[in-house]
């Protein structure tokens, strides 16, 4: 039974290469649906980054460039500004992991927000460095066991995790900053609305729009897909509350 059509912005015959139960697939599908709905396919340039999120360009049927690790927002800035200089109106978004956006690339991310760069950034937060096998990252929660925090994250030893959506909301150039999750159908639908809003804010030229998505990493969390989603629902949303932290239209 087919519940919904494959979006036009998804490449035909592409095989799912993420781990079973990983939310990247859902996130990319939502992005593709919104690209269809907002008729952006012909004018989009996507910026993929390092880590699992780089696989974006295997699935998304839009022009795409891979950026060096952490530099996606800088690369996107260059693309957006260059097209503006060429008198082209193009839609530019980045698709990054939490390590990429909020650790190695924090300077580029935050300064893009501070400049009010008219781009959208999507950050998949799965609380670890997934592609390298699950190490402690900027969003690893207190007590969380990873391959580089074998006894669990400890404030004294490892320091604290970053609440990215809240931090980006503090930047004056940010038009929209929100955190969403994909652990059930209701949240998948609300995530879609949030990403759509972030995209629309760019189209309206309001400045930097940002969506952090809490995502599962069953392989590195050593949990089943189902338990991974329960963990997001019951544990992660306590640490990383869902919601909209900045919206220039409402503030």
């Amino acid at each position, binding site marked *: 039974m087919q519940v919904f059509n494959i979006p036009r912005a998804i*490449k035909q015959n592409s095989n799912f290469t993420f781990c079973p139960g990983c939310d990247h697939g859902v996130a990319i599908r939502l992005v593709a649906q919104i690209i269809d709905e907002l008729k952006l*396919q*012909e*004018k*989009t*340039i996507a*910026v*993929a980054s*390092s880590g699992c999120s*780089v696989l974006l*360009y295997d699935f*998304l*049927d*839009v*022009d*795409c*460039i*891979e*950026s*060096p690790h952490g*530099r996606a927002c*800088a*690369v*996107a*800035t*260059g*693309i957006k*500004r*260059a*097209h*503006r*200089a*060429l008198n*082209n109106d*193009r839609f530019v978004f980045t698709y990054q992991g939490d390590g990429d956006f909020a650790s190695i690339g924090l*300077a*580029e991310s935050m*300064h893009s927000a501070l*400049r009010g760069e008219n781009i959208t950034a999507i950050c998949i937060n799965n609380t670890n460095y997934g592609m390298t096998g699950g190490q402690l990252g900027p969003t690893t929660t207190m007590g969380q066991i990873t391959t580089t925090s074998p006894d669990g994250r400890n404030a004294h030893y490892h320091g604290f995790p970053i609440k990215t959506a809240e931090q980006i909301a503090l930047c004056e150039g940010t038009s929209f900053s929100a955190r969403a999750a994909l652990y059930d159908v209701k949240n998948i639908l609300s995530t879609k609305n949030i990403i759509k809003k972030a995209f629309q804010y760019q189209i309206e030229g309001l400045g930097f729009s940002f969506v952090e998505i809490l995502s599962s990493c069953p392989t590195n969390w050593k949990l089943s897909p189902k338990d991974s989603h329960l963990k997001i629902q019951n544990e992660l949303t306590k640490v990383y509350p869902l919601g909209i932290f900045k919206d220039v239209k409402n503030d």
Partner: protein
Amino acid sequence: MNKKELLKGNIAIAKAALNCGCKCYFGYPITPQTEIGEFLSKEMQQRKLAYVCAESEVAAINMALGAASTGAKVMTSSSSCAVSLMQEAISYASSDELPIVLINVMRAGPGQGYIYPSQGDYNQATTGGGNGDYRTIVLSPSNVQECVDLTYKAFYLSQKYRNPTILLVDGLLGQMAEPVEINDNPYQEIDNSSWRLDGANERPSRNIHSLEPNQNKLNRHIIELFKKYTIIEQNECDYEEYMTQDAKVILTAFGTMARHAKALCNYYREKGIKMGLFRPKTLYPFPYKKLNELSQKTNLIIDIEMNMGQMLKDVRLAVLSNARVAFIGKPVGDWLTEEEMIKAADNILKEQYASI
């Protein structure tokens, strides 16, 4: 002469970039090249072009990487220790085949060093300071007029070969003013419609990436890159010869050091020693073949650099066993003076010329 204006190398580079259609500049301040960014900030804002005061050189070169993917002409500028920060993206841009023009107005290193003049970045520029198998085109001006001419050429070659191109400028030249003529860009525009990222409109979507998990594809990609480098090496070697025709001793030098080397030729010619100069204008591709030919007619080559002997390696590779290769150098600080150079050259020449 009337069209000439007195310009610092830095300003001449900036003016030339604007004149040949540079649409985007991203930069971060560092002496001795800051005037490039200062000058362009006003001009580009007035022309509604892309100018970002980047948060770091890392961000600046990555903005350039993104901007280059749109097909727009893109430039960034920096100096030595900060160019080191850019190497990752240069490696990416080489694999991605993106045309970025990078101006490196050199200061002294290693590390922070200081703003003294030096030619210490020859190795980094010509052999690639980043990871992996790749080459960047490197052009070396020796006067302010060439800062203009070679900026045009850097944009042209970067677009023609879809390859990062470095203008390697001596710090002295960035700061020094000479009369120059900002002539028209002599090069043709290169069509980039087959690869640029401007939206998948009535064509399949495009993908620019260096990541390649398939080792056969990665191998093929690098081999293709090197086929391109071979073509660059065959077609783009550029050099200046000064009184080499009958020369028994040939000096090799690049950038401003070559001017002093010319003066040395004049000095020794008066003393009856037939000396000439070979100056590569392209440091990559290095004109091995031409220097090899010249070296067959001489028995002494003296390489002169403001470093501890970086181009020397390429000179030796060109000369092979045709002639003896000697070196005069000094790492940083005041340029080698006439007296210092003559003293050093005398010592080298003594063995061959009893008259010295």
